[in-house]
């Protein structure tokens, strides 16, 4: 029985093929995810991976890993990153470039914006089916909240709450020009 399962199990998959992209915007780039649905053996490892390749000024909307830690390794280019921890503190605010590694723990929110022609990275996640939740965008947590929760939670008007909730139609990648980073973490 083993030769029919473990020995013949597929253990490789290529993430550098944009035709397999899960998120794709011609002007901004693509993101491919490799989880246990794509590569079943990952279920045993309880690990998954993500490959991103975005152009200059493309921004990955702020998001957090709901059920995994992530380790991000830069393979090409540079990007500005901001990372926020459970206390609401910005624990990283700066550039990451080729060859560098940064760990993003579960629940920590992160935003990435490419500052070089192409920013490419691979992320390894400690869950076979890592789930992200986004703070902004059409499938975001703010979009899923009632307006009353937003108005009361943030003490903003109904009109402002509508803008917060509905203005961003993208789900993952958006365009963002100009500097957004202010140097050292607060």
């Amino acid at each position, binding site marked *: 029985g083993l030769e029919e399962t473990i020995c013949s199990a597929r253990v490789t998959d290529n993430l550098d093929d944009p035709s397999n992209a899960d998120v794709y915007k011609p002007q901004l780039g693509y993101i491919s995810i490799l989880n246990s649905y794509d590569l079943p053996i990952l279920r045993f490892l*309880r690990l998954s991976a993500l490959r991103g390749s975005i152009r200059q000024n493309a*921004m990955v*909307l*702020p998001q*957090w890993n*709901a*059920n*995994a*830690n992530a380790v991000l390794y830069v393979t090409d280019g540079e990007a500005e990153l*901001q990372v*926020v921890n*459970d*206390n*609401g*503190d*910005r*624990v990283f*605010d700066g550039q990451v470039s080729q060859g560098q590694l940064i760990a993003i*723990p*579960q*629940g920590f*929110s992160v*935003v990435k914006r490419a500052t070089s022609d192409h920013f490419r990275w691979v992320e390894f996640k*400690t*869950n076979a089916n890592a*789930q992200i*939740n*986004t*703070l*902004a*965008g059409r*499938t975001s*947590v*703010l*979009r*899923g*909240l*009632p*307006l*009353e*929760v*937003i108005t*009361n*939670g*943030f*003490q*903003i008007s109904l*009109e*402002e709450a509508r*803008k*917060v909730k*509905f*203005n*961003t139609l993208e789900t993952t990648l*958006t365009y*963002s020009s100009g*500097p*957004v*980073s*202010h140097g050292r973490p607060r």
Partner: protein
Amino acid sequence: QFPNECQLDQLNALEPSHVLKAEAGRIEVWDHHAPQLRCSGVAFVRYIIESKGLYLPSFFNTAKLSFVAKGNGLMGRVIPGCAETFQDSSVFQQGQGQEQGQQGQGQGQQGQGQGQSFRDMHQKVEHIRSGDTIASSPGVAQWFFNDGNEELVIVSVLDLASHQNQLDRNPRPFYLAGNNPQGQVWLQGREQQPQKNLLNGFTPEIISKAFKIDVSTAQQLQNNQDNRGNIVRVKGPFGVIRPPLRSQRPQQEEEESVGN
């Protein structure tokens, strides 16, 4: 776990060790370093939400199981990828809706396409009442609202030893809104720092770009001047779209079911 953590020679009844006061209630936290809780690998929290109190959206680093010990209210969750299936009635009045849709378009709901108009749409909201047991996954935002007249008391266990907790053996709430001036007093090293919401950690420029809003609104989302805590008082109507309460089902519908 550290070695011998479960070498317990004596057990005792535990009381909450930390109380977080808020505008419309309080959150009582048991010391999760207490030997018996440490051995069990859990943390325990009690939420006391006053009438019209809204426990602001938050998510945790691990699985949580809650029990409604008293009162009743509403509970909302936002699960990644789920649609906003709760929409207000104007969507269902198709013909009329269409006209409104055009009108709606004018009200800044650009990009909705199909000319639909609506007051709001959001993910599922449920009624909760005493006795309800609620499962919460890590990373999934959840909020509670007390729409009754008595206190809503919810007790929760957080399974810190679960494999779903990818962080350390501490209960770590992440708040999407609000500001807790007392801070995460149950965590060593965080006693003196207020706990802010997630958006507070980003620069206003990032927030304004991500949400496509102006920077002043982005700054408001950061709740910098907010000292209400994590349970705030809702002033005026709380017009969240909700299903009728079980007891409010139309009489005829119930008779039909009896007939069958």
